[in-house]
């Protein structure tokens, strides 16, 4: 016992070891989370793109009431008819 040296103070190495272990695990968990989030976003976007497009409604231009004559059989006015 007289020749036994005192226990060395190696607590700094212990702290470094546990810090490394926790940091590496935390980084991996974060990488799993980020990859999962990005893939979910991709999935949502692709599902939107994959949906069949809804039929497009083409709106007929309304005839202005001032130009309407009310006579459906009336022929359109052309240069020929004006000369006559």
């Amino acid at each position, binding site marked *: 016992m007289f020749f036994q040296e005192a226990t060395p103070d*190696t607590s700094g190495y212990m702290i*470094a*070891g546990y810090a*490394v272990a926790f940091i590496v695990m935390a980084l991996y968990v974060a990488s799993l989370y980020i990859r999962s989030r990005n893939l979910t976003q991709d999935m949502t976007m692709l599902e939107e793109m*994959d949906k069949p497009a809804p039929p497009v409604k083409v709106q007929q231009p309304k005839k202005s009431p001032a130009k309407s004559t009310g006579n459906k059989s009336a022929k359109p006015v052309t240069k020929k008819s004006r000369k006559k």
Partner: protein
Amino acid sequence: MQSKPIALKVLDVLSIIVLGISTYLALVFAPKELVMGDVQRVFYFHIGTAWTALIGFILAAVFSVVYLITKNLKWDRLQVAAIEVSLVFFLITIALGSIWARPAWNTWWTWDPRLTTAAVTELIYIAYFMLRQGIDEPEKRARFGAVYALVGGISAPITFFAIRLFRTIHPVVISGSNAAAQGSFNMTPDMLTTFFFALFTFTVIFIDLFWNRIRLGDLQERVEQLKLKVTM
């Protein structure tokens, strides 16, 4: 992404709890080793991560065999998940070992058989991901990956038995003695309790991360299929 199953949520919480308990046991409950001092406490996490990583590499080799027989890509995803989680755990093992070696052996690194085989194993599996990145076709990538993981799986038992087969300075704390080893110690009952709890902890964490990684692989697969459907 589909919502997490309840069992996985419970496992997530359990992993955090057992990690906290294990840290307490290692830092507070276990007695200080008189020759090396506090740095010996990294031993619990060092062995815990090494144990699960080596089991993971062997599991990946088994999944490779099943993939090569069935040609079902599900087994490829399991193999990738096992290797990725094991790679992270084995990185922690090597880092902790190096930190322990500095005060114990007076060097961060030495080309001892155990350290060399461990470094080779880590590099083999880093190269595995590089190989997969280089192949676009899913079936071809899975086939090459399976063969590679199967051959790479041999490195896991070699790493484990290196300290039992070769003359090395790495201590054999469990069931073994080595005259050349430096840094060996006998475990007290409290140390044994902490040690076995650390093994249990890292097994739980491994299963949890493995399951999460499998789900990520499944999601990746669905996104790939949807991309193909949209572009065609």
